[in-house]
């Protein structure tokens, strides 16, 4: 695989991963509060944190870290505003990557 092909494959895979995380976050966001699986949410936030830091999306990484901490400390009040923020920012990162892939 050549350099540009590799870059394209990597970009596509990052997009897929972000979309998968976004779907999981959206499902949690729309679930009734009492039915939310905080452990699964914690893992998704953790995954977004690592992905975002790797692609240089530091604001998203920071939000994901705060959401992960809120999950581990079961801080439902913080999650009430962090979850929508994280979901939106994850979608924005996916969109930005898609635009980048088109430019290539």
């Amino acid at each position, binding site marked *: 695989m050549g350099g540009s092909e590799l870059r394209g494959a990597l970009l596509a895979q990052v997009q897929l991963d972000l979309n998968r995380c976004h779907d999981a976050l959206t499902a949690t966001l729309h679930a009734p509060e009492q039915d939310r699986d905080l452990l699964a949410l914690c893992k998704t936030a953790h995954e977004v944190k*690592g992905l975002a830091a790797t692609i240089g999306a530091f604001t998203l990484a920071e939000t994901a870290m705060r959401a992960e901490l809120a999950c581990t400390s079961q801080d439902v009040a913080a999650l009430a505003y962090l979850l929508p923020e994280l979901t939106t920012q994850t979608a924005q990162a996916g969109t930005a990557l898609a635009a980048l892939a088109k430019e290539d």
Partner: protein
Amino acid sequence: MPHQQDGTAHGLLLVEDTPSLQMLYATVLRKAGYKPMLAASGAEALTKFAEHRPRVVLLDLMLPDADGLMVMREILELQPETRIIVITANGSVNNAIEATREGAHDFLVKPLGDIRMIGAVASAFAELREDVSLTIDEASRSDALDRAFMGRSVAMQEVHSRIAAVAASTAPVFILGESGTGKEMCARAVHLKSARAAQRFVTLNCSATDPERLEIELFGQSPPKSGRGQAQSQVRAGAVAQADGGTLFVQNIQDMSPDLQAAFLRFLQRSSFTPVGDTRQIKVDVRLICTASRDPTEDMRAGRLREDLYYRLFVIPITMPPLRARGTDIHLLAQHYLAQIAAEENKQFCRFSPDVLDLFLNLPWQGNVRELINVLRHAVILHEGEIVTREMLPPGLSDARKLATNAGHSPTNAVFEGLTMAQIEERVITAAIARHDGSVPRAARELDIAPSTIYRKREQWDKS
């Protein structure tokens, strides 16, 4: 290109569940010449590990189906010599600290830098090669000794004579010397020159082991008996049992708790021990070699090391000379390690410019041979060519020379001139860790800060 053995499909296992990150890390590893096996879950990692027994594992601590620490424990149970490099995300560094306490070789914080990741993997394989070369045959043994004790200085000749004299005895040996002077290689040399050379050489570093687990690491553990009709699980062998017939090398013995020092003394007096959770006395034949980065006599006087244990251990001292006292030995060592690192990194470097050789003779080398290796690795990884020139060396080296030449004229100011507070902090902490043989807890004690502060700062340096 990495060493041939590392490039095989069975040498390296990468465990990362996020597909894009797995793809990215695998790409970086392949570009560096490795051929990693890939796993995306704890179960897949353990299956592939059991089948191929890779020697180095890059392991993400947060896996979808398992706790990475549990996976690490299982791997180390199956093959204790495996070098595990754990991967963690920013903000989860405490897990990584726990992993290193439980035997991880190193840890990396996301986002992973290419150089840092390849450096960690290369270092893990380099350490394994050293272990392997020390256990194969006579030729390899003498190679290892040559490597460890390259040099014609008077100071090293004295070390040679002392090793030859003590090797035939079974008396405990206490090796002294600054951090990075090669105390472990000296211990291996004593073992390899002795009649026990064909038996095991087992290492236990008291400062790198969780104090609560140290007794288990030393004496092993018998698990509680399970229900009636079930067989008792196997005893977990500690370092003492593993070294039966061979040599036990204990580093930083003064970091044992007072209770454990008492138990260790009983073991020395009786040549037998009792595993944790057991009542049986197990007889062993072990030759003991110890080291300490601090003066053990001072520790004994200060009450940190039991007096009776001190006199049991401090029978035959060997002092490893600092690099700055070894004259032109540094040129032989530099040439040897340059060839080794260049081969590992697939670079052409084979010699030094005259001003670099001159500079090497005048540096204080406070981190000794370990510092020399780091300087060479820095030059080789970041540059191309056949000759290592002054410009390729890390910028801090000139400051170190200032420190050496301005001794007595406010050296602290000279060495820190032009640096930011953050850079000064990094240097002071890194030097403290080196002085304590890589022990973060003891470096933290010296600097009067919490170990977690150092781990967090390291995490920030890794990112910058």
